[in-house]
């Protein structure tokens, strides 16, 4: 059955047969009222069956540029200049000739050059001024002919004018386009075979219908083949955003490692945003150049739990009952209730601990954070973090390194380096560097063991390990994105083409 022709092949072959000679694909397409690309695709399929031979020809065509077109209307500058000299009696100063020629002053240099090269004028200096003398009666310009010929819609010029055409190209009066033309003909030796194939007629079933199925008619018939070798057209259907798919993937890994997802608000009081994390109230991270303050319609929130508030306040002022010295600095409720956009996801960990004070617990969150940055290729006012905590009895720094190793393995990073780090709310603190397949060693995120000043005010006695990953950065690496603004790309064409695969 594979010998049979598709409907498309049949139509094209029949037309080639009718024309009986080598014809351009464009002509076939025209005759058949089909797209040229489709016809070429069909011709290729026929060529692969050795029925048709395709010839590829490069065709050079010429057309006038805007400047060239302008000269067809106004005349070439050198011709204009020459007539200026003529009007003035065959001898004139350069400036006078220009003035009487109607030349655009910008082209006067070109005009003089070509008038001289063509041997129409002689140029000399008299008393410091440039003087032109005409040497011929009428200016014979092949260039004008070239432009004239092309202006009539021709794509080539007479062969005697090739030199002038070259000049016109150099002067950018004419542009050159090379196009590929496909021509096809039936291979002579196969004429009989083609004839036979065509004479078989349209055999076989087109659409399979319920009637054909119920009658069983298909048993006696064969099916008409379709061309299934072609590349399908691009289409736009519904799908997910690649960055959302990436976050879905991360979430899957976290759940697989036994972490439970939690959430928290974008707008926070500084109590949750910093105080509960033992960030001193005069820390630079709270300054307006670092974090967004909320100014309207409300700039302060309130304290929900006075007992917890008092414990946090004591820890800041003198360490409370934690054995810490605290910050030895007055603690202000005004600062504590100030509203900000959360600069990290760690307040969410505190809100989780507030509700879960006994282990074992493992929690994670993947969500948006805000920093007062000007949007650029490397900085955004918004970024996502994937972070979490592990609470259990007897956890140690080595356990933290173990969790970091398994989380990083989960996202495909096997080689790690640990560096002591510093965060106000963890001690010891660890910075993790990972060997990324594309980027080399990159900083993956921070982690540590929550300080007693952070956990004790909640009455938590167990150890809490905390970790965070710059998830947006991992996504950018996976997608080969260099500009942070492309995380939230607003280019629908890009989105329609893009996908996250892991």
């Amino acid at each position: 059955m594979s010998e049979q022709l598709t409907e498309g092949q049949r139509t094209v072959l029949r037309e080639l047969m009718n024309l009986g000679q080598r014809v351009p694909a464009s002509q076939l397409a025209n005759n058949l009222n089909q797209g040229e690309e489709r016809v070429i695709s069909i011709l290729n399929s026929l060529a692969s069956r050795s029925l048709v031979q395709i010839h590829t020809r490069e065709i050079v065509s010429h057309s006038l540029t805007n400047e060239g077109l302008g000269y067809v209307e106004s005349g070439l500058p050198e011709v204009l200049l020459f007539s200026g000299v003529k009007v003035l009696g065959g001898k004139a100063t350069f400036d006078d000739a220009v003035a009487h020629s109607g030349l655009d002053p910008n082209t006067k240099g070109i005009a003089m050059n070509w008038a001289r090269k063509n041997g129409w004028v002689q140029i000399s200096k008299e008393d410091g001024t440039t003087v032109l003398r005409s040497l011929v009666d009428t200016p014979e310009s092949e260039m004008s002919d070239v432009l004239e010929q092309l202006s009539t819609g021709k794509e080539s010029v007479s062969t005697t004018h090739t030199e002038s055409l070259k000049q016109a190209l150099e002067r950018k009066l004419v542009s050159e386009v090379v196009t590929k033309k496909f021509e096809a003909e039936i291979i002579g030796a196969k004429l009989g075979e083609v004839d036979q194939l065509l004479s078989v007629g349209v055999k076989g079933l087109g659409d399979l219908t319920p009637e054909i199925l119920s009658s069983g008619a298909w048993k006696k018939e064969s099916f008409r083949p379709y061309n299934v070798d072609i590349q399908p057209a691009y289409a736009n259907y519904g799908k997910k955003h690649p960055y959302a798919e990436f976050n879905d993937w991360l979430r899957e890994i976290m759940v697989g490692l036994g972490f439970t997802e939690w959430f928290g608000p974008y707008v926070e009081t500084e109590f949750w945003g910093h105080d509960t994390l033992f960030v001193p109230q005069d820390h630079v991270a709270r300054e307006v150049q670092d974090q967004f303050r909320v100014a309207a319609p409300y700039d302060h929130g309130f304290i929900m739990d006075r007992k917890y508030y008092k414990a946090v306040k004591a820890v800041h002022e003198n360490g409370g009952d934690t054995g810490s010295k605290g910050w030895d600095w007055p603690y202000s409720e005004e600062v504590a209730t100030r509203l900000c956009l959360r600069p990290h996801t760690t307040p969410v960990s505190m809100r989780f601990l507030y509700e879960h004070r006994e282990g074992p617990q493992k929690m994670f969150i993947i969500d948006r954070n805000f920093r007062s940055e000007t949007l650029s290729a490397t900085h955004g006012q918004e970024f996502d973090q994937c972070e979490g905590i592990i609470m259990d009895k007897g956890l140690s720094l080595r356990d933290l390194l173990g969790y970091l190793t398994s989380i990083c393995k989960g996202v495909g990073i096997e080689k790690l380096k640990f560096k002591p780090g510093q965060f106000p709310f963890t001690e010891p603190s660890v910075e993790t560097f990972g060997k990324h397949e594309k980027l080399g060693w990159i900083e993956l995120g921070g982690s540590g063991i929550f300080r007693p000043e952070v956990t004790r005010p909640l009455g938590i006695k167990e150890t809490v390990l905390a970790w965070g990953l710059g998830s947006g950065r991992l996504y950018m690496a996976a997608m080969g994105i260099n500009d942070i603004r492309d995380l939230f790309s607003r280019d629908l064409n890009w989105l329609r083409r893009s996908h996250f695969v892991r």
Partner: protein
Amino acid sequence: MIVECRIDDLLSLIGKKLSMKKLEDTLFLVKAEIEKIEGNIIEIEVNPDRQDMLSTEGIARVVRAFLRFESGLKKYPVKKSGKQIIVKPGLNKIRPFICCSIIKGIPSDDELIKEYMHLQDALTSTHGRNRKKASIGLYVYDDLEFPVFYGPQIPEKIKFVPLGYEIEMDGPTIMKDHEKGVEFGPIIQAHKKWPLLYDSKDQVLSLPPIINSNYLGRMTTETRNLFVEVTGTHLLTVHQALNIITASLAERGGKVESVTVEYPDGTTDETPDFRPENMTIDVVDINAMIGLDLTGNEIIQALERTGFGAKLVKVKQVQVLIPKYRMDILHPVDVIEDIAIGYGFDNLLPAMPQTMTLGKVNPVTRLKNKVRDLMVGMGYHEVMNYIMSSPELLNDRMLRDRPVVTTGNPKSRNYSVLRNSLLPILLDFISQNQHADYPQKIFEVGDIAIPDESKETRVDQVPSVCGLLTDVRVNITKLMAEIGFLLRNLGLDEHFTFESEVNSDFIQGRSANIKIDGEQRGFFGEISPEILSNFGIGYPVVAFEIFLPRSTDWTH
């Protein structure tokens, strides 16, 4: 914080030859990182808690201890100079504290002077909170006549030539015309009197925390003996700043002498005071936190590698001597971290995670994912946008006047508020994509922020879904069928109703509210031409937005 050092200087302070690789690896293990090397200049990033590492001397001290060239508690001998600083009454509410030291016989060349100034700047900007809590002044010791006085003065009566100037200025002029006065004036300007430091010959040393005198406060390459003073509002911070800078100068070979500060209430303070602080920690707690089984001696070695003094008491406890230039030790856990660093992070083996818990996604995430799947099934393309937006887009272009969470310090008006609805965001999205193929069916599932006084943070954060369709022709009946498909597959068949309502977002007669169990939960319609033209959109648009519950229960 970046510290810039000269490599030859750093290596000579370290005292032994080191390859750059060894230096880099060592710094990595003590919380520092090489940012850049250019010729003889090396830039080292130091963690902000280690103010004692903000200088070449400080970094060298840490490296020396870590590589065991000179480990254990570093001692700086202090001799009493017998000199006095007399604090006058009236500074309590302005800038009450002062600590000073004298350093004799320090080397100084142009490079060193630059470094001393750098350390002074770095310390006052970070540790001193931009001079608010503490500020530092260095003076030519030999030009001073002791005792030195620190007292309040009426601004107009303050007269001296400030650093970098040739002419005498009074207090108000300095605040107005001197760049440091303009920058730091607000720290003291509101007070009727300002703090002034002057000597027994009535020469002004400085107007803390603004500016030094040009005569006494200018170090030259001739200067060998220095008088250092730190003033501020927090005694501990002031002491620490003095200790850090004095220790650094002592590392350069200076001999330290102390001075007596006499406060008006009769108390005295002999500064600097390098007697170490004591902390006793149980060996068990140390091992439990790090996850090791170190002996007392191994712990002591690790402590000495990080610059602490240490000895065992009663076998089970370690007594730690904390150097006075370390201001990051608040709690035993801070010492334990240094034991881990001294042991070497590169020697710590990750342990296999043991904590068994069942993981699960948040119910809201599951609901959001369900909505996303249904939207994709109906042929919508998911988009993701910033949470931040502009009031112009959310309200002006939409002809809306809804409250919006507004930030006070945005870098750009385009990202100055939190979105209070997804519809304007998606309209803006399609207005940017009019070159892309039509039809365009897009959706976003994400949170919006609605001001709400009753909430702890005055904001109600609501998960929302918005779907939008634009084409040459759009059809609201089809959109309604899609909303029905969505809601029915969320289990809301027979719970939802559409009720026509005039809404300025939409063409009159072509919009309705979406109610769930009688409660308003969203809206849909064909966008009004006026709004389309505000967005510069040339195609008709139908859209809906539905507010999702925070659990799978729609009654909440």
